[in-house]
């Protein structure tokens, strides 16, 4: 399960999560949070080995088209409809170190803003050649990339007229279970970002800006696909040199 992590294994506990940077649990503007938010204080504990460790996935689990959403659900010879884009970036930790072997899984609506899901009720059309999921694993320097179509914005039942800006959902594994993260990526220049109740669960504007991928003209492939760059930062670790019990390092 682990050709992913060739770096020297690290065993330090993670930096505490900055709970003011993340959204709080209860955000009434996003109505579903009202009944799904814990209301008691979290029990704080410096990480133990149960959270410092975590599963690592090998590149061998990936299929050839896992990072190509344009083709991984399409019939042979066909492709998904929409604006062809490449999303690429690095996974780093808070110390700026590359996280190699990080598994990223992504999912999104099609170009019309419609998900392939039985509970989806938006009237936009399904694309028979678009499934909406993909995955990649970062290389030795933390780089990943995938190809997809730009998802459309879609309405959702929250306020009377709430719409989600175009976005891609990301799930990320680092090397420790405490780093486990799910987030969403938005696109530079989209005026709908700032109207979205889910985006606005985050209070700090800089934390929102970190979720917006800039158009990366330099990496755009002529006559094929535009590129967007999205770096992801996972929690950093303390050096075990500072710990009471010396191990590793």
């Amino acid at each position: 399960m682990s050709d992913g992590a060739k770096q020297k294994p690290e065993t330090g506990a993670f930096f505490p999560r900055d709970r003011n940077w993340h959204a709080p649990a209860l955000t009434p503007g996003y109505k579903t949070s009202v009944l799904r938010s814990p209301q008691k204080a979290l029990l704080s504990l410096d990480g133990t080995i149960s959270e410092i460790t975590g599963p690592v996935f090998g590149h061998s689990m990936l299929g050839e088209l896992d990072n190509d959403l344009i083709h991984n659900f399409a019939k042979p010879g066909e492709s998904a409809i929409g604006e062809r884009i490449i999303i690429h970036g690095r996974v780093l930790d808070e110390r700026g170190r590359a996280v190699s072997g990080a598994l990223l899984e992504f999912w999104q609506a099609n170009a019309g803003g419609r998900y392939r899901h039985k509970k989806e009720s938006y009237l936009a059309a399904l694309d028979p050649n678009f499934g909406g999921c993909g995955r990649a694993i970062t290389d030795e320097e933390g780089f990943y990339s995938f190809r997809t179509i730009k998802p459309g914005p879609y309405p959702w039942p929250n306020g009377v007229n709430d719409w989600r800006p175009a976005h891609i959902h990301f799930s990320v594994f680092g090397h420790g279970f405490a780093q486990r993260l799910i987030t969403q990526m938005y696109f530079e220049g989209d005026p709908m970002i700032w109207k979205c109740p889910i985006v606005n669960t985050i209070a700090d504007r800089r934390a929102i800006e970190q979720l917006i991928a800039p158009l990366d003209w330099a990496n755009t492939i002529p006559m094929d696909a535009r590129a967007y760059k999205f770096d992801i930062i996972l929690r950093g670790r303390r050096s075990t040199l500072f710990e009471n019990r010396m191990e590793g390092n």
Partner: protein
Amino acid sequence: MVQALDYLKETASQTAGPYVHIGLTPNFCGIGGVYDTDLGTTMVSERTLGERITVIGRVLDGTGTPLKDALVEIWQADAAGLYNSPSELRGAADPAFSGWGRCPTGGEDGVFRFETIKPGRVPFKDGRPMAPHITFWIVARGINVGLHTRMYFPDEAEANAADPLLLRVEHRHRVATLVATGSAPNYIFDIHLQGEKETVFLDI
């Protein structure tokens, strides 16, 4: 002037939304042919060492209604108390056990189910043994930051009484929210997001 502390900020979490199953368990929600199988579905094989157990449960909202759009992941040590992770320096874990599982809550009843093994004990930072436990992580629509918690075993009263994490729970009646019910090999662990029985969630 002093030097800058040039740490980066962790990417902010956002809800997994209503369609997390598309991304993480596509076969479960009818998107076949992209991946052979959904990751984390099978945790044990014939070669896995240890006592087979089943853990079932639900994730319940503030009205007691089970969530049908949640995703639960678990992470645990092998039967000998070793994690299958590069950061595990105490020895080599059972190669036939990854220690990680993933299950959507769906269907009519919103029940998640893990077929796994009973984990061995692992040490706390000061060397004291922790009671056997399984680490849980829960995401769903309406949950802005994934929730961490732990499941302990009802038939380990002595170990639980000395567990360093359980000892930190100030309101002692809440310890019960971290202990499964049932008995070997079938355990039940309901997770309450809110209300009188709200599960103790962890900031770890």
